[in-house]
């Protein structure tokens, strides 16, 4: 068991390595001078020289990469060019809203999508199934800002039940906290729910066709238990995998939502950094979010044996 965990952990190294290379190369992908990219159009030659010196852009690429990785492994994500603050500090300050909303989205999505998908599969071909699938494809196609603004207008402006914008951390009380995360979470969860519902339905359809379901019915097992235990446990692995893989789109969606709802999360941090060409922040944010994705998928991977005893270590 421990060996398996270790092997899976080792397997994440090449993935994070690729991410690191991509993130590092971002700055150097630019057709022109990287220093000019950072300095902007108004930078003087002296400014550019200073930039190059500070960032060590004169050194060979491999050496730059090496020292950059070394720094990161020691927890140093660099320093913001604009504010002179350590990137890790900036990220830590702003990461809470993003993580909280991301987690809420995942919870909402699983709680809503899995039952919907199960029902759609059970009633496949009927109007129930078609309605659910149509709603799913519509939810999948709507731009996040449309959903976001519609929700804001309905619940925040017209009904005044919820705040229009902003974020309140748990420290300021559970009610206020929940009020502020409801709309942003629900907004992004539409897409995630749509994805999960489709996947759940497809997997359940396959499972419901299997012989062991017929055996269970021949034993006299009633429908709720048939679906929830006999069928769903077999469908769990692909469904849970989709939850993990979809995290990537969720994080992307959160970035957009932070703009719609003016939430001070990492998404906004990144966007501000882009406008100012503050590369260390850009690199740091991408690294952290990718690491999060890899970590969560690893945990999901390790959880498979809970569902399917055939997956052994």
């Amino acid at each position, binding site marked *: 068991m421990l060996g398996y965990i270790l092997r899976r952990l080792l397997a994440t190294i090449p993935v994070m390595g690729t991410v690191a290379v991509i993130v590092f190369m971002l700055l150097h992908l630019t057709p022109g001078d990287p220093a000019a990219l950072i300095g902007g159009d108004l930078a003087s030659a002296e400014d550019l020289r200073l930039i190059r010196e500070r960032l060590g852009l004169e050194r060979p690429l491999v050496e730059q990469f090496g020292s950059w990785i070394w720094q990161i492994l020691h927890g140093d994500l660099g320093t913001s060019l604009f504010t002179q603050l350590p990137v890790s500090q900036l990220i830590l300050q702003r990461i809470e809203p993003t993580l909280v909303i991301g987690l809420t989205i995942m919870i909402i999505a699983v709680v809503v999508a899995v039952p919907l998908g199960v029902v759609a599969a059970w009633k496949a071909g009927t109007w129930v199934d078609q309605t659910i699938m149509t709603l799913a494809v519509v939810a999948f196609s709507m*731009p996040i800002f449309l959903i976001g603004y519609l929700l804001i207008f309905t619940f925040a402006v017209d009904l005044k039940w919820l705040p229009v914008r902003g974020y309140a951390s748990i420290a300021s009380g559970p009610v206020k906290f929940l009020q502020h995360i409801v709309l942003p979470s629900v907004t992004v969860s539409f897409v995630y729910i749509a994805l999960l519902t489709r996947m759940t339905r497809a997997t359940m359809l396959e499972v419901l066709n299997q012989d062991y379901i017929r055996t269970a019915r021949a034993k006299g097992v009633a429908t709720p238990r048939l679906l929830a235990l006999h069928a769903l446990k077999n469908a769990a692995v692909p469904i849970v995998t989709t939850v993990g893989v979809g995290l990537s789109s969720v994080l992307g969606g959160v970035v957009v939502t932070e703009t719609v709802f003016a939430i001070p999360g990492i998404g906004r941090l990144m966007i501000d950094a882009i406008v100012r060409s503050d590369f260390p922040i850009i690199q740091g944010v991408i690294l952290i979010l990718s690491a999060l994705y890899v970590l969560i998928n690893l945990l999901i991977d390790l959880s498979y044996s809970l569902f399917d005893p055939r997956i052994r270590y």
Partner: protein
Amino acid sequence: MTLAFVAPSSPLRRRLAPILRWTRRYPAFVVGSLVFSAVVLASIFAPLIATHDPVAIYPTERLRPPSDTWLFGSDPFGRDVYSRVIWGGRVSLAVGVGVAVLATVLGLLIGLIAGFSRAADAVLMRIMDGVMAIPGILLAIALVAVTRPSVGTVVVAIAIPEIPRVVRLVRSVVLSARELPYVDAARSTGTRFPMLLARHVLPNTIAPLVVQASFVCASAILSEAYLSFLGLGIPPTIPTWGSVISEGRNVVQMAFWVVLCPSVFLGATVLSINLIGDGLRDMLDPRLSRSI
């Protein structure tokens, strides 16, 4: 019912009946295709359909609600939103199609290599995993940021995060095609590689690729809209659906139509493409619904 107005045994009815039966079987595809065709035609005939010049400014007509003159209202600069949406469709659709084509072609190439060469497979798939670990929007934003933003760079930036999924698809088709008994038989009788590829592998990739390409197109149009919405995409001098919406961001509370109308238009288009993708998948191979 629908054929009631046509005489029972007329040749027209005979020809219409199978089409109507087919429509009943794939309603989503038909609706999607009709809407999408309408949008494409509207973009192509933009000069004829638009009511105003998309970049013309009417300072006295700022933020007018939708009316007979301003079908979708006017934006903060006094430009006609409707005309900007119609003209913007050209760019947005071009980006969507461009991304779909680019991602599909590159994905096919990489997927084929990964499927046929075990050594290359190990390396390529790790790279694909790495690309997939980065949220697509963020990667696209970063890529656009390091190059001069233009339609071309946006297309490439959005395409790159879409490639890994296509690669996985192609790779799995190649791997399972290689296992097939008749392919084994062909190889043992000495069929050369290119023939093997053309006859046995490529035909099996067409259906899944076409379906995936539709979904990529829909996703790309949304991604372009998000990029522009965040102010990080195609330069605002070129109207796209995203930039039109983004200009309404600050005035959304008093002039919601600047955001609402283009968003609905955008959503409807993306929906129609997704419906086409779903329909194609059901038509070509219902088994694909497991993997896509």
